[in-house]
């Protein structure tokens, strides 16, 4: 080696809120922790707050190559840079530099909730950069923060509408069946307590297998995301699974209500979102698997709110 590089530099960002959840307009407060063995010369430390919506076209809707190249340009929601230390020298040892930065949307934009999907990602990052001169490596560190919509305490809660759904599944109610004669006789009734759901509350309901001549292997609850991207060629709509929760295992007893209960996973769900360029929506499937591997599925679109 020609240059003796500094043996050890560590950079870390710590925010005060341990949950790392912020609302629009909040001030993000924290420290940048800088640790090195020897004194380090640098050209300044910057802190960037960046919020992006990344859209990607699935290969189902466009060709593979287009999918690869034609990623839609990301939409920037937040972008601000903060110099937390000007060029100079860092003393050896541990240095903590406190910072405070407002979480403010770019002009003409508003903040959406953090969401990690397959084709759509909404992500907010704090990025800290230690710039160093020529011949030296720059150092950086990224920390993701969560953004949620604010619950406005001042406003009265919107009047609760009963959005519950009662459902009945029978062989006759099924669509998309090839050979109806092979479907066993059954009657499944149930109820979803709400189809407009608060994201922080569990999704609830119950289900009764009133009768079923075959053996049941499993009853499952599937949470799906429906992601729609607008692009030059039109819309690309993709449905993918987020999670599946088993609510009935084995040949469950007939006539007894079994509970439907699911907690919406954080990050992978967000309030239902519709914008001019893209949409994020959710659906729930109730899946009944019979002993002979027959699967019946009942689909319910749901709206998530905060």
């Amino acid at each position, binding site marked *: 080696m020609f240059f003796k590089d500094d043996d050890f530099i560590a950079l870390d960002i710590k925010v005060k809120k341990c949950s790392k959840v912020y609302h629009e307009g909040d001030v993000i407060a924290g420290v940048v922790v800088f640790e090195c063995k020897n004194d380090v010369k640098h050209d300044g430390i910057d802190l960037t707050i960046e919020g992006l919506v990344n859209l990607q076209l699935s290969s189902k809707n466009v060709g593979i190559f287009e999918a690869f190249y034609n990623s839609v340009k990301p939409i920037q929601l937040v972008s601000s840079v903060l110099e937390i230390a000007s060029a100079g020298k860092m003393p050896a040892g541990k240095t903590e530099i406190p910072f405070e930065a407002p979480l403010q949307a770019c002009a003409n934009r508003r903040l959406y909730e953090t969401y990690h999907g397959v084709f759509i990602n909404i992500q907010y990052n704090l990025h800290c950069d230690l710039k160093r001169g020529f011949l030296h490596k720059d150092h950086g560190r990224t920390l993701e923060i969560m953004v949620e919509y604010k619950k406005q305490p001042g406003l009265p809660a919107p009047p609760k509408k009963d959005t519950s759904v009662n459902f009945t599944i029978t062989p006759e109610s099924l669509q998309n069946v090839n050979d109806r004669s092979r479907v066993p006789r059954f009657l499944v009734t149930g109820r979803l307590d709400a189809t407009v759901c608060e994201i922080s509350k569990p999704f609830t309901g119950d289900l009764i297998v009133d009768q079923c001549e075959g053996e049941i292997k499993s009853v499952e609850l599937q949470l799906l995301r429906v992601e729609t991207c607008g692009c030059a060629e039109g819309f690309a709509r993709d449905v993918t699974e987020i999670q599946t929760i088993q*609510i009935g295992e084995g040949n469950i007893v007939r006539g*007894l209500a*079994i509970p439907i209960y699911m907690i919406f996973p954080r990050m992978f769900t967000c309030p239902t979102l519709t914008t001019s360029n893209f949409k994020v929506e959710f659906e729930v499937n109730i899946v009944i698997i019979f002993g002979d591997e027959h699967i019946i599925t009942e689909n319910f679109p749901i709206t998530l709110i905060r």
Partner: protein
Amino acid sequence: MSTPRSQSLWEWACRIAPPVTKKKLPSEEVHDHPLKPMTITVSETRGASKRLGTGTSTPTPSLVMDPLGAALDGSDPLSQFAKDPLTSDAWDATDSQTTKVASSTDEYMEPWHTRRAVILNKFTTSEKLSMVSSFLSAGEKVVRAQSSVSSIVRTRLEQLDDYDDGTMRELANLTQQEYIIRIEQLNKQLVHNWEKDSRVNALRIAIQCSALLEDTSVIQFYPSKFVLITDILDSFGKLVYDRIKAKAESKIMSGRRASTTLPDNFTPDMIPEEAKEICSNWFYKCSSIRELVRRLYVEASILKTYSFLTKAEFSQALTRLTKMVRGIGDPLVAVYARCYLCRVGMSVSTINRQFLKENFYDFLATYHQLFSGPVRSVLNTQKVDMCTYLHLYTPALEWIVQGLAHNAPESLLVEILSRCYHKGNSALLLNTVMTSFRPSYVSSRALYFIELISACNTEGYPQYLLFKSLGNCLSVAETESPLQVLNEVWKVISKLEQPAQYIACAEVWAHFIVTHFSNHEINIFLGDIILHMTPNRVYEQFYPQLLNIVDKVVTNCADFESLFSMDKFLPLIDMFHGETIKVNVCKSIMAAYMSRGSKELSNDPIVIDALMFVCRGMHDSVSVLTVEDEKRQIGLLISQLVRQVNFGQDLEQQLSYFVEARAAFTNLDSVHSTLVQCVNKLSVNTGRIVRGHHTRKTASFVRACAAYCYITIPSIFSEYTRLQLYLLSAEVALMNQCLGQADACLKAALSLVPELPTSIEVDGKMRSSEPYLTSYISHFLSLLLIVPDSPQLGVLYLLRGLLNVLKHYTWDQNSSARIRIYLYVIDMLSTAAQETYPYSIRKVDSNDVLYGSDPKFIAEINSVCSGLIEEILTHLKFLGSSEQLHKQAALAFDLFIRIVIRGDLTSPGLATLALNLWNLANKNRLLDSKLAGRTVEYLKRRSPTQGVQQNVYNELLNKLGS
């Protein structure tokens, strides 16, 4: 240099002391002495109504607890260790609260960990088991489990039950033991991973373990599997709980620097944000577990952690999980999941017990599933019968119902009974209710229960089990109309055709019958048992049960002695063939008899005959191969019986009983020695009755007693016992003026001495027998003093015999025990030379009277003494030559004392000899100078006041001082 000079220079003569008038020692009255048993004085403060003066304390003597006995009662310390120490660690924390609750309430609920061991012992299998886990080395890779849902997009959420790392392995063909070892390994892995900070791995192990509970492939092992796996889950839950608690505590500490530990009853608002965040993270992780059973178990295992979040959350979650169990199709898996939920729920004391009821009623709602087609087909493929299958439910169901019944009012029993009654096949439920509810509730409704039991006819669940449970309740609690209950029950039980079922019921009901009914009914009961057990000699298979019944009868029966007059009791005992079992029966009868207190002396020939019969049974089992401790126990029991039998004034019969006993129990040393003691006691008592003046009849009787002893002693094995007993018998014989018998005993003792082994075993170590022998011979000598010489055998015949024996006894080369004994002999002989002896036996003329201090007799004594002193001097020389100077000094000093005190100093040369010995003792300054000083002082004080003696004595004293 003053070595003792040769014999010719001195001559021993005993000093004849003038008769001493007896002085009374000063005495004062005392209230305490060291041998009095320790008592605790409890003073009671009386009510104010009493007069002031009468408010004295009432001492209530209670023996301070014997430390040895204390160790024995309660549970056996060995079996306490038998429970698995590894898993019990995990228990301490989770159970501490349960036990606290239990102790604070009046009713005791059996804690889980005692049940745990029972389950593990009961539900075992010889089938091969298999398990799937990614954390065990070895085993075949399994094909990745296909998810049942078609869309395959995997998200990071699924990483928890991710099979992608390819390390998922299946271990098949495990025996039960191997399986347990593997689970143990998983447990260690979990803790290990946790300590390594890889908490996700720890969670994955917990999930994989819960997954094993989905599998009912070897169904009869399922309860044990449940126990093993919930152990792991418990330790996992505890780890999570402790970590969050530690987090919260460290946060609080850094904030305030004040209290570092959370109080036990902390509230959620005391918990810092960060800890809550971690907490809810755990629950988010759990809620995304796909499979129902795994999600349920893992969430239940960390349920206690909810207490960090909000107060109400815990019970809400419990209710929610209770509902969730409904989704489990397999009734067995479901009931165990409920059991686990109840266990977790009950570990938090403040919780409302409502969820237990919900769980039980949910189970009732699914009860019909147990008898449904799918379950039957599973049982068919696994070749398990319905009865075994239903028994698998018992532990879980009992736990739930017991939790429910714990401190519950009687009304709950009524409510539950009415619910169960309407279910078909309710035997399992009824049984659980009977075993779980307070026995008094059940027993007060005994007749109603009998009705229910007779009405329910469950396939696969035999009725006798229900009667057994009912019997258990009734043996603890009272019922109103025992006779009616018994009649109703016995109608059914006596019709049971399977001997196993019959005896199981009889065993349980024995307690009820024995406590509630008279001998007449007991006799009928025993007769019924004999009737059922006799065909085809089936009783041979049920010895433990029969033994139990006998035990219950003998311990609880009100009138013990009339037991033997029943015509069915002894035939029942007769059914026990085979050595060991017979001995056990005999032992339990004897132990029961003895535990009734020693005051109950019996002289009923029927009872004695029966007990003798029983004891003979025990005795006859003793053989060469019998263990020492077994012999000891049997010996103890028989000895106790021998001591108990008392014919009162009928001495002849008493003696003939002892003769009979001797003939019956020939093999046991301890019984023989007891017999000799008893006969001696009898002899002494006889003497006491006639106040020492024997008539011809009593004289011949006591002689017979002495003869009995003399004959019996040689059959004892131990030389020590024999020696002691000879001496004792000689003393007793002498007391009863049987001189010849006393002489014979003493002679026998003397001839036995050479056989005494030189070393004895004490507490497993070999010790020299010399100290024992020395003390024995001192005792012997003190008796010898008053034994009159036999006219045929010459003067001091026995003493000469003793000396002869001592001379030829093989002494240890270096010991001076023989010489010490010679010193004692000198003491004894000097006393024998006195005009009257210090003690004597009434109506026995000792040598003082016989010889009247005849000079020939004195001369004889003196010559023997001279011989002894000569021996001692020789030994002193030997000690000097072998450089054992300490011993030499001590011995010389002792001999000096003897000469000065016992000897007549006017006898030629004796004073000089004494002086020489004194010098020898002081020669090397080995003697304690204080002792020497005190001795001189003492000698000065007791100097004789007159005669020639005084001059010599004083002269000697003067020389000593210089």
